Structure formats: structure tokens, C-alpha cells
């Protein structure tokens, strides 16, 4: 059991000042190779929880272990992707993808070859040398995804990565993301405020509620894999949607949103 768990939190908390409790008493375990969705309304602490795991911010209390070691800062086995593509405008796609290697000082033929392959994998053939301003929003996120793959991290933290895109593009990219991270090696945590999206992608959905930010429920999603867009209309799927809604409704009643 223990060797299968890559991330675990117990009593994990993050307080920004005396009044703002962003995350309180989070208890969870995340098995290797799983896909976890963090879903909840704005201000429920899902982004904060993601940044705690990434090592970008420090916890205020409790325990947070990644591979049985306390998180003390950014680690090379954890990669991040954001709602904005955060590409460097003055670099071509492939130069953006090579950024992780550049920062580590590991740019060589092999790294360049891998960057090339990653761009093919995310569907950017013929756009390897385009500049970000020449790409659509969806394509920019594809470059960001290729850059994430280039880090070689097997824990991927995605903060509403396709949240700014139109629905069609988002659905397509979600499917491609699933294809890329499937298998037993890559562990994914995906932040979203879209309940359908959260369920569709995940093996397990953490439902978070605000003030203070808590994980209100951890729902295992027993839908067959690979997922298919037709599942969105099945009764099983809608049962999960209702379950998530009930959890949120139970906590949000009477709360000003």
C-alpha cells in the first residue's frame, strides 16, 4: 500500500493571515498513476492546495508528503500547468518547450529531439517554430502541455489548464490530455470549477468547499476507461454529477457566494 501512494496529506492547512484560512485540515492520499480532480467554487482553496503540493507555497500546519518526503520547495518530479499558457513570446514553440532543460542546463541533442517529439505528441506538427502570438489559445496550451511533458515530471499539477478556452477546444484537449497521462506512471491533479469536466477526467474527485477551504468529499469515479464523450449523458455519469452537487449544496446553503 505505502509504496503505491505518491502524495499524502494529513491535517494539512494553509493560512494566509489571521483571517484567511485557504485550506484547513486536508486529509488525502493519492495513488500513483491516478487522475484526481479538485472541484469547487472560487475561493475554496483548490489552487492553494495545488500550490502547496507543488512546493510553490509553504504549508502552515499538518503533514504533506510526496514520495514519503516532506515538501520543501519545487521538485523536479512535479510539473505545473496554468490557466494561462505562460509562454515566452520571444521564443518559438520548441524553444519554449526546451525551457525546462535550459533552466537545468541540460539542453543537448537528446533534449531537442524530445522537445520535437513532445510537440508532435500534442498535435503541433508544423508549428514547432511558430511564435506564441502566431498560435491560437488552444495551440498555446498545447505548447504549455509539451513543456510540461519535457520536464519529465511524473506528477502533473494542472490549474484549470483549459479554463480560458472555448468548450469545443476544451473537450478535445481534455481527451488528448487523458490519452497522454494514461497508464500507471503519471499522477495527475486537475483543478477545475466545472463539475462535468472534473468527473469525466478523473479516477477520483475531491470536492472542495470554501470558508474555510476544506475537502468536503472524496468521490471515487467508477466509470469505464478510456472515457468517451458519450458518457456525459449516461445515468451513471449524472449520478456522480448529482452527488457532487449535493455535497456542494450541503455546504454552501446559506453561505453568501
Amino acid at each position, binding site marked *: 500500500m505505502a509504496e503505491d501512494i505518491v502524495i499524502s496529506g494529513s491535517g494539512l492547512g494553509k493560512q494566509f493571515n489571521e483571517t484567511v484560512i485557504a485550506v484547513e485540515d486536508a486529509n488525502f492520499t493519492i495513488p500513483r498513476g491516478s487522475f484526481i480532480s479538485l472541484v469547487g467554487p472560487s475561493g475554496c482553496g483548490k489552487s492553494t492546495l495545488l500550490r502547496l503540493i507543488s*512546493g510553490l507555497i509553504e504549508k502552515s500546519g499538518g503533514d504533506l508528503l510526496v514520495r514519503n518526503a516532506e515538501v520543501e520547495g519545487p521538485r523536479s518530479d512535479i510539473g505545473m500547468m496554468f490557466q494561462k499558457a505562460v509562454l515566452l513570446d520571444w521564443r518559438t514553440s520548441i524553444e519554449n518547450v526546451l*525551457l525546462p532543460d535550459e*533552466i537545468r542546463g541540460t539542453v543537448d541533442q537528446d533534449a*531537442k529531439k524530445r522537445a520535437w517529439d513532445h510537440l508532435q505528441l500534442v498535435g503541433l506538427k508544423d508549428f514547432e*517554430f511558430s511564435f506564441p502570438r502566431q498560435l491560437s489559445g488552444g495551440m498555446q496550451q498545447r505548447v504549455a502541455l509539451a513543456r510540461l511533458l519535457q520536464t519529465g515530471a511524473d506528477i502533473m499539477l494542472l490549474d484549470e489548464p483549459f479554463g480560458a478556452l472555448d468548450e469545443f477546444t476544451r473537450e478535445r484537449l481534455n481527451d488528448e490530455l487523458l490519452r497522454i497521462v494514461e497508464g500507471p506512471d503519471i499522477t495527475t491533479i486537475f483543478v477545475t470549477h466545472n463539475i462535468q469536466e472534473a468527473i469525466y477526467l478523473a479516477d477520483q474527485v475531491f470536492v472542495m468547499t470554501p470558508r474555510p477551504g476544506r475537502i468536503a468529499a472524496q468521490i471515487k469515479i467508477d466509470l469505464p476507461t478510456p472515457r468517451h464523450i458519450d458518457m456525459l449523458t449516461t445515468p451513471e455519469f449524472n449520478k456522480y454529477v448529482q452527488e457532487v452537487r449535493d455535497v456542494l449544496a450541503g455546504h454552501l446553503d446559506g453561505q453568501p457566494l
Partner: protein
Amino acid sequence: MSNDQEASVSNIELNSQYTGTLGGAVIRHTLIFFVIMFIWEMANRTGFSNPLLLPRPTDIVASIWKIYVTQGNVWYHLWVTFQEAMLGCLVGTVIGIALAVAAVLSDTFRQFLKPYIIIVEATPRIAVGPIFVTWFGFGMSSKVALAALVCFFAPFVNTITGLLGVQEESYELFRSLGANRRQVFWRLMIPTALPTMNAGLKLAVGSAFGGALVAEFISAQAGMGILMARYTMSLNMPSAFAGLLSITLYGFLLFRTMEVIDRRVLYWLDDDLMAKKSAKRAIKFRQELGL
């Protein structure tokens, strides 16, 4: 995305004014120009305006010929002022950018700097001219100093604005990749700030010219400022106007040069240059990888 599209639409509209009737526009402007010149000339010849104060266009043209060709004395003065302005610009810009970087990197320093910056901002910097001439003498150094002081502000403010414009997510990305402070600074902060910094630089070049000229007006042995002061004091107005036109022309040329450099450096903001760069890098990369 939509902003880009709007921008390109307005570009097309702007261009069509020229491209559609380029010949027509040139003819129209030339015509209007000559009509104005003719009225000006006639006003002078008929005694309507005082030729002593407002010289005739034909006299100005003759003076241009004189100071550039027959006497040829203007070249030396232009060169002096150009050197002062450029040197001043260099000094002012370096100090401005250095202070801005320090202010952005250190909150303590920024707090310390703030009141002094407000004082400098509130002082009309030209007013320091006489003091600088007293401090640094009648030679070039007082002009360089005033040019530096005058042009320091734009690079300073723009560098701060540019560096503070780096988005939080960009920092998070770099930190999550394990970047150190130096990498964050050179690979993220500086390139992000570069467009704003360059805009400041363009302003600085222009104002440095003004700063050098004003210092020359106060007291100098050479330069366009003292040349023009001498012409006006001897009521040689045609030559004074010829000098003024020279300054305008060089100011314009300098600004255009800066724009060309600006466009080259900031290739990723220009569609054509970006496409060229993209093709070049593709060839280089494919060769390296043997693709």
C-alpha cells in the same frame, strides 16, 4: 487575440489612406506647402511682416546652403551636440535602468528611493542647467550632465513598469522549474520588460537632445545651442531658422533610427519579422538535429 485583430484592421484603414492615393497625397501636401511658403514670402516682401524677425523662406534656404556648404560650420556644432546628447543619454539611461532594477528587486531600496524620485520628478529638470554649468564647466561635461538628468526619468519609470508587469503565473512557472534568481531575471523579467523599456529609451533619446541644447544656451563654446544663440543675438534670423530646421531634422532621424532598432530588437511584436525569424530558426534547428 481580438485586440490583435482590431489593431490589424485599423492598420489597414490607416494604410489605405496612403496606399490608395499615395501620388495624390504627395501632390496635395507639396502644393499646400508651397502655397504657405508663397504667402509667407509675400507677407515679407510686401512689408506685412518684419523680415528682421521672421526671415523669408528663400533666405532660410540660402542660409541652409551657407551653413552646410559654403561656410560648412554647422557640421562641427552638430557633431558636438550629437556627442553630448548621446553620451548624456547613455549615462542617464544606464543610471535610470540600474536604479529601476534595484528598486524592483529590493523593496527596501524602493521605499528608500521613493521620496527622492518624487523630488526629482517635481523639479523642472531644465532648471538645474545653470547649476550644472557652474559645477561641470563650460565644456561638454555640463551638457552631458544635463542631458543625462533630463533623460533619466523615462527609462527609469518604464523599466520599473515593465519589470513589474511580469505576471505572477510566469514567476510560478519559473520557480516550479527550479529556476534561480538570475535565470528569472535574465530569461523572464528583462525580455518581458523590454518593449516598455525600449519605449522609455526612445523618449530618452529625444529629451537628451533637448537637455544638451538648453545647457548650451546657458553657456558653451560649441554646439547647436550656442550657434543658434549667436545667430539670434546678431539678428541673423535666416541662419537661426536654418539651425532650428537642422535640429528638427536630426531629432527626426534619431527617432526613426530608434524605431528601426526597436523593431529589430522586439521582433516578436512584428508579424513580418516574426515570420522571417521563425523560418530562420527552423532551418537552424533542423540542421542541428539532422531532420
